């Protein structure tokens, strides 16, 4: 029988489901693939029977495994050659339209910018931590953050105090 108890797994699931799904959405850009990827990552966790010393360790493991899994999926031939039927245009107000366009811009960014922006702005990691997670130089992370913002044409203000 599984060594990870149901209630223990439920706690871990609720602590990580949002970030695993969001990372999957960032990479795979559609709900079906993101849901599949999320389930596979949690099944990998159950299979690995991994124990974490700290919450940071747990968080880092889920981020890394999700990113690696999504990159695997992206490398698959069938994935890169198929057309998503989920991209059905929705009716929006002008403000919603701007937001939807910005969201589309974010999803279309190259992986290296998306992951850095996500970890910095959403997960609240400092550049040093991101550098450790992604195994890239701190200066590279700073450049990618700046380039990512530029590509997104972010002039939304308020959130960009530097944590270098």
């Amino acid at each position, binding site marked *: 029988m*599984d060594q990870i108890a149901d209630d223990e797994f439920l706690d871990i699931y609720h602590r990580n489901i949002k970030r695993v799904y969001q990372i999957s959405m960032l990479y795979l850009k559609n709900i079906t693939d993101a849901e599949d990827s999320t389930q596979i990552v949690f099944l990998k966790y*159950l299979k690995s029977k991994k124990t974490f010393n700290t919450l940071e360790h747990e968080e880092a493991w889920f981020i890394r495994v999700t990113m*690696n899994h999504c990159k695997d999926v992206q490398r698959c031939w069938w994935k890169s050659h198929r057309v998503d039927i989920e991209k059905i245009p929705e009716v929006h107000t002008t403000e919603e339209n701007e937001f939807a366009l*910005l969201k589309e811009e974010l999803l279309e960014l190259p992986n290296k910018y998306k992951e850095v922006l996500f970890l910095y702005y959403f997960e609240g990691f400092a550049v040093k931590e991101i550098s450790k997670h992604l195994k890239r130089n701190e200066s590279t992370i700073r450049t990618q953050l700046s380039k990512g913002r530029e590509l997104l044409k972010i002039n*939304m203000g308020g959130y960009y105090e530097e944590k270098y």
Partner: protein
Amino acid sequence: MKKNINDLFDSLSPSESQIDKMYRSINQNRNTSSWHLSLKSYALVGSIVMVIIICTCSVVLYLNQNNKQDNYQEVSNTRNLANSQETGFGGFVVTTYLTKESQEYLGGNYVEESKGSRLALKTRLLLPTYDLLSSMTPGYPFTFELSDRDSNGITLKIEVDNGQFLTWNSESGKVSEIGTIAMSKTGETLYWSPIIHDAKNTRTASEATIKVIALDKDKIIATQEILITESDHRYYAELGELIILAE
């Protein structure tokens, strides 16, 4: 309504119903896996008993058949050991990823999820299934090292007569074509791809010989070959004899 980047990421969050749906699905798969696992363990016990019976009967025949080959291997190993002691060269360590199931593909996380195995002398070992469309790695990973840690100044030259070598950065996904000759640092991983692009078409190599050469400046100290063969769409690797050339 001024939105910020956090709102953007927040808009990618799953809904409550999605969270519930995925949790139910994970639990279902988890239980299915457990059920399969218990069934598998019963099958495994039965198989082990069968295997023991078959092995007992086969061992005598096997020992007789391989007697000559064992003697030959012993002689060549002794010769290599003698050469190693004379020259101080400790030999090569060639590591790759093996499988026991013929249909197992190598995933992109293979370093974290699998265990690299050292190739054994004159023993044919099964590699994971390679398929251009399904495999997550660009070829078969081989890591070449010198077993002697004090072999400073010795460089490794790796050659292959069929297919080609590639390097792969698993983080960025970048694949670089190296060709059929590579200068490798000890401990570096090269990917051997059986795919051959000719002027006319693309085909798959059914066999190849990888030659590892230890060089002290331009002088060849030792060489060893890895024979890769294909049978029924499955690739096998076998380590050849170590040849020490320097006196």
